[in-house]
């Protein structure tokens, strides 16, 4: 051994000499999961910081979250800000609790309890995904509609008291030249329902016919509410600057305000939802492994612990998304 050419550092057996001890006293798998979580946390921080950047850039005209996310299932037309996301948050926190209970049952090698708690966690994840889909569909279909101005701003409509009015309520679509596509003209069974969107002219006509209506700009007042113009200013703004009608939201424009608001909503909640989806898939795989007794035979439920780390991380990210998208 003395004749070997490998230089010795004299620190063999010590931690920095690569001794027998596990680095950071954690198993390989858990350590790698922490590596992944740290880098993923930085990715999400990048997204949220970019959201903060854009919001600070448009601080005087950013949409008010309470006005955008105010739907609750089965309560149509009721203004219910926050309740729905609060419910989603609770669903995710509770699925985190069942996950940590599954990990705990794994420590005691109690297979049946691991199975029960993991099944509950998967259920929670699926319910959360469904809730997010509902939230998206509300966001995409919109409620009031708006008009885009030539400088890319949004104007919305309100009555004399400042309550929001939907453009469908005062404007009627006029007949247009577009011919409906019928199945007899299609190659296969293609057909479409009648499609007659509101045009800007329809909105202008409806607006002039209702002296009660006012234009609501994106500008926030000192009280943190949107500015409502008086009737004369409203008419001028709508007639001079309006360029098109927006209903709902897509990737390039939305009826709520700054176009980037929609972009960030789709991107950040979508990326988080994708994490939840992959979490549910991984949980299902591990769940079946538990069922067929893989970890019982292996003598350790560490795999459940590792997927648990990932699942809690997804919950952790949601806590921040909840704060920065819905509260602040």
């Amino acid at each position, binding site marked *: 051994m003395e004749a070997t050419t490998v230089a010795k550092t004299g620190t063999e057996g010590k931690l920095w000499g690569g001794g027998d001890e596990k680095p*950071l006293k954690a198993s390989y798998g858990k350590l790698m999961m922490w590596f992944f979580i740290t880098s993923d946390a930085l990715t999400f921080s990048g997204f949220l910081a970019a959201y*903060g950047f854009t919001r600070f850039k448009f601080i005087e005209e950013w949409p008010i979250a309470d006005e955008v996310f105010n739907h609750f299932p089965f309560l149509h037309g009721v203004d219910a800000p926050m309740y729905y996301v609060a419910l989603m948050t609770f669903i995710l926190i509770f699925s985190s609790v069942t996950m940590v209970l599954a990990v705990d049952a794994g420590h005691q090698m109690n297979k049946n309890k691991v199975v029960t708690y993991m099944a509950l966690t998967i259920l929670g994840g699926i319910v959360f995904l469904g809730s997010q889909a509902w939230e998206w569909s509300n966001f995409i279909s919109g409620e009031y509609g708006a008009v885009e101005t030539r400088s890319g701003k949004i104007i919305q409509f309100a009555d004399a008291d400042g309550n929001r009015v939907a453009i469908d309520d005062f404007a009627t679509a006029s007949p247009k030249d577009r011919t409906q596509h019928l199945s007899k003209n299609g190659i296969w069974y293609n057909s479409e329902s009648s499609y007659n969107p509101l045009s800007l002219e329809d909105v202008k006509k409806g607006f002039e016919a209702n002296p009660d209506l006012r234009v609501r700009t994106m500008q926030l007042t000192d009280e943190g509410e949107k500015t409502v113009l008086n009737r004369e200013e409203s008419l001028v703004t709508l007639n001079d600057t309006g360029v098109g009608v927006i209903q709902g939201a897509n990737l390039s424009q939305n009826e709520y305000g700054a176009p980037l608001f929609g972009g960030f909503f789709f991107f950040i909640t979508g990326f988080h939802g994708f994490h939840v989806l992959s979490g549910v898939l991984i949980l299902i795989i591990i769940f079946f492994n538990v069922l067929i007794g893989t970890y019982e035979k292996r003598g350790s439920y560490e795999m459940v612990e590792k997927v648990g780390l990932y699942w809690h991380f997804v919950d952790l990210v949601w806590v921040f998304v909840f704060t920065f998208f819905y509260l602040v």
Partner: protein
Amino acid sequence: MAHDTTHDGEHSGAKKRIWQVFIILSILTIVEVVFGIFKPDFLVHTDLVSLSLLNWIFIILTIIKAYYIVWAFMHMEHEAASLRRVVVWTGVFLICYLVAILLIEGSYIQEIYENGYITWDF
């Protein structure tokens, strides 16, 4: 037998901790939601370091929630101190830096939009 009892004791302690943390997280979330719905005027209109008190409350409560999730649910409290520092310090320092730079830049651009010679709302 003696071994069994100590093990059981440890175990019920872990369970107790889980439910305790769940209750803490629930209470913090409920407080956030209540503040978010009622938005007390005093908190909205009092600024502290260019952020309203209400937003400070939200952010601090969020960080407390994050602490409980990482420490209790992700078992960070049982990991080696070195692992804790590797994960937490990396995240905290990089995130603080990134957020500070981007928010300062964001308000600078907002200022330009507002006070520049070109109007952005024409």
